């Protein structure tokens, strides 16, 4: 039986091949997607971005540095807010200015005012304010993954 080389496919064969190739392509791309999804971690072994601090009464008036999550927790009476201590320039940890009003970075001299906006140095933008909340058991929670406006306070 001789088969012509440049045969035209019959309807049935054409359907079989097309469906087959589609399924094979689907299987291949789904496997690739699975591999990509596999690479995205579902749990992290780094410190939690949501940091559970102490109770409100454990913090004094003014700024307290919380080293575990590199944040300044600012207390003003019964109001709390938190600002990231990670310099927006190249990631050094900023210090509180000697006058206790703003922050400055020891690495490249960036300066931030009390609202954490840039007032000097190479930093491209101000330090982000982070969401402060209270856990159901009454402790302060600082969520470094959620930025808020500078005027947002947690009022106890």
């Amino acid at each position, binding site marked *: *039986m*001789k*088969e012509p080389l440049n045969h035209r496919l019959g309807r049935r*064969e054409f359907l*079989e*091949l097309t*469906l*087959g*190739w*589609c*399924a*094979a392509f*689907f*299987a291949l791309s*789904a*496997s690739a997607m*699975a591999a990509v999804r596999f690479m995205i971690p*579902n*749990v992290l*072994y780094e410190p939690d971005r949501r940091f*559970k601090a102490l109770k409100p009464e454990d913090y004094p008036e003014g700024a307290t540095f919380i080293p575990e999550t590199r944040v300044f927790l600012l207390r003003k009476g019964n109001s709390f807010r938190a600002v990231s201590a990670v310099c927006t320039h190249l990631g050094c940890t900023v210090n509180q200015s000697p006058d206790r009003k703003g922050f400055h970075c020891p690495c490249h001299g960036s300066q931030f005012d009390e609202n954490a906006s840039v007032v000097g140095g190479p930093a491209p933008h101000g330090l982000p304010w982070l969401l402060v*909340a209270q*856990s*159901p*058991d009454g402790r302060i929670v600082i969520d470094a993954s959620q930025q808020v406006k500078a005027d947002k306070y947690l009022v106890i």
Partner: protein
Amino acid sequence: MSEPSLRPWYPWFTFLAFVLGLLVTTVFFKDQFREWKKWQNAYIKQEMAKATTAEQREAAAHIPIEIKQIVLPGLGRVDRCITCHVAVEDPSYAGLKQPLAYHVNHSQHPFEKFGCTVCHQGQGLATTKEAAHGNVPHWDRPMLPLNFLEASCAKCHTADELADAPKLAQGQAAFDKFGCIGCHKLQGRGGNVGPELDAVGARRSPEWLARHFKNPSKLVPGSAMPHFQMSDDEIAALTLYMLGQTGEHLSDYYVSMKTIPSADSGRRLFQERGCIGCHSVAKKGGVIGPALDDVSKRRTGKWIVDHFKDPQSVSPGSVMPKFGFTEQEIRALTAFLVSLSDPNVVGFLKVPSELTSIERGHTVFTKYGCAGCHNQDGNGGIPNPNAKTAEQVPSLKYVAEGYTKDELKKFIMNGQREIAMKDPSRPPPPLYMPAWKTRIPEGELDDLVDYLISLMPKDEKTSF
């Protein structure tokens, strides 16, 4: 040129490609429907229902659905229990059905420092109920049943330290009563006839232990352990005590956490910090601050604690400085101050030298677990198959008849490895008298011998 046709293979190609596509899809679906997601969705639903303000609703809607874990490098554990038990820290979930229930009373062992499995056991790494609760093959530490939970306290605490662990105390009492330490080693102390018990709680299940105490040789054929007639309560208590012996090594951090503030450490602190410079106790000390002899009658414990934290907060105008004591120190000092008003506190401790040598000897008898083989008060009756002495460990009632003090001392020191057999064709008796030479110090031995001699019933005493 004839060529075979490929056409018959086309349907196979289509079929196999579909099968493979289907299988890959199955992988995705299996992953999508993980058990824990159900509970996190239920939690979000409850939070939404609870929310009253728009802001709360917003917050509830933003609760991420994710595997949550507590990483505890100091304990070598990662606990993912809170992936399903999401609401353990929220008091508004108190009394609700598991897994969405509040965990009462966790302030002394905060979750982020202790996790869950250090007390409850189970498989912290797992994220399915069955595997996490640990009743699965190849996980040797399933969750402790709640009635055995106090066993976990023993990982860090002794029963004496804890007033709120009565079952653990019962367990320790049973352990002493049956003289287990006579044959078994626990935390470096004890005999060598039976196996060491340091990590027995990590190896054995509660069921195994209970069955074993009921009848040792039925579970472990040929076991030398006597068949003690324990009550069910004693079996439960001893099982719990053994479950607590896990041999886990705790890192320094947790060891430092474990100090239970006692009046004693308070007293030491009271002296070190020079409180006596301003305050007086029993007419000794300074006069700048008030005398403290009956401070606990004037003030509540909470007032004293608050006062140590910040004197101004409860006693405005006080000249006492804010010392910055730690929580532990404050509790220790408070315990000491409260104890000052107790009239028994001074005469409470009996000094050992005031006891008779027979009383001390009885303590020695208990301490080294002699009762394990010779029964309580040396009454005897513990079986020792094939021993010439009526297949029992001999009673000690009448040692005074057969031995002088020196002979008895020598016998205890050297022991007796070979026990005379009733029937030489049967296996030798499993129990024997160990040599106590290096273990019982001379002073204790004298007391013990005095005690043993005193066991002789008074009316039957004959003199040689």
